[in-house]
């Protein structure tokens, strides 16, 4: 299509008036690329139409420009700003909700931290208690093991047919007490067996004597550990009696007859 044909066809007028089809718009665009002077023609048509409709009998409100400008470039205007404001309100509400949620979360967290610390403290205490309990349990087991061992050895000792048991009767301070001596007549081993002997005064100790041919022989001091004392003493031969006196700690060379508290004959 030649330039003047395009111009006289009325296509450009329709193009500016906005009544052309999509295909016609594409045609005009292509023609303008081929013939740049067509763009000048289009601009003249546009200008004529603009000038025509601009000649309105009703003057345009001079405030309208500022009103529209405010609407486009500031967010402080009213009326149709209702929608953005509502949006803002929603946003603020969301923020408020968020903040409230955060505060609740924060407080809950703090409370939980305290709760955990408390628990931690409790569990610390618990752990100590558990450890202590474990220790004491272990101690108990050990003690029981020990006492079992002691019992076993006692049993072993006592079940030996060569053992001779001598009962010692209490006198003076130990009038209500008694004790046993287990004496192996073959190996000469002597065991002191007593229960609930009262503790001696400070610096004092019970001492066991064997009477051989009328003479007292020191066969060791007694260590009071538990309620029940089962202690291996020094070995002795040919004893006729056994006696316990209270002597200075560590024992004496000769017995103090006044402090004799247990005595028994073989």
């Amino acid at each position, binding site marked *: 299509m030649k330039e003047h044909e395009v111009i006289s066809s009325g296509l450009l007028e329709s193009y500016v*008036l906005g009544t052309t089809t999509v295909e016609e718009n594409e045609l005009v665009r292509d023609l303008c690329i081929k013939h740049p002077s067509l763009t000048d023609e289009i601009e003249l048509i546009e200008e004529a139409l603009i000038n025509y409709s601009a000649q309105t009998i009703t003057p345009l409100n001079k405030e309208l420009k500022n009103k529209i*400008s405010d609407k486009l470039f500031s967010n402080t205007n009213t009326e149709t700003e209702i929608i953005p404001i509502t949006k803002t309100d929603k946003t603020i509400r969301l923020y408020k909700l968020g903040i409230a949620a955060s505060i609740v979360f924060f407080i809950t967290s703090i409370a939980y931290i305290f709760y955990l610390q408390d628990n931690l403290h409790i569990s610390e205490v618990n752990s100590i208690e558990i450890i202590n309990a474990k220790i004491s349990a272990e101690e108990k087991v050990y003690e029981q093991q020990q006492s079992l061992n002691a019992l076993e050895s006692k049993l072993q000792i006592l079940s030996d047919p060569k053992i001779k048991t001598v009962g010692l009767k209490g006198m003076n301070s130990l009038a209500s007490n008694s004790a046993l001596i287990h004496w192996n007549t073959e190996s000469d081993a002597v065991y002191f067996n007593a229960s609930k002997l009262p503790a001696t005064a400070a610096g004092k100790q019970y001492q066991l004597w064997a009477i051989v041919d009328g003479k007292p022989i020191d066969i060791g001091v007694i260590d009071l550990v538990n309620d029940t004392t089962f202690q291996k003493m020094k070995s002795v031969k040919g004893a006729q009696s056994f006696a316990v006196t209270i002597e200075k700690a560590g024992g004496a060379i000769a017995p103090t007859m006044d402090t004799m508290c247990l005595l028994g004959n073989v």
Partner: protein
Amino acid sequence: MTKKITYNQDELINLIRQRNQKAFTFLYDNYSKALFGVINSIVSSQEEAEDVLQNTFVKIWNNFESYEESKGRLYTWMLNIARNLAIDSTRSKHEKIKSKIQSTTDTVYQKNNLYVDDTAHESIGIRAILGTLKEEHKIIIDLAYFEGYTQEEISKKLNLPLGTVKTKVRQAILTLRDLTKKEFLQ
């Protein structure tokens, strides 16, 4: 009255894409009256026309991404927005303004052979620059420009051959171009 375009279309489009306030000022200074004239010919009151013009600029500004240079002139795009918003406005008010205008133009056209009815032009809202623009041209231009009638629709409506409509549209616009030139010279 005449606004000499100081930005070319490409520069202006770039400024609008940047949402530059200068672009708005330029658009308003150069196109508001023309768009208002179109809107005012469709809606029934000045107040409504101003509302529609305001909405037109807001829509131009906020929906500018939908404008494609390859599909037409910037002014044509703005013109379509203004026309559509004006028609929507009259519809929303349950005013059958379009048919009202149509009946008016029908009347005018029928009267045209007898005499020029000046009050009819005023009802459309355009100052008479007549004397130079023939009434038959004015009616065709108003249908095509203000109401968006295609040339085929005008042909049917006015019962004129399509070729005649094309010629008359072109003649009418050429007359307007002459008027524009004269105004420059003044």
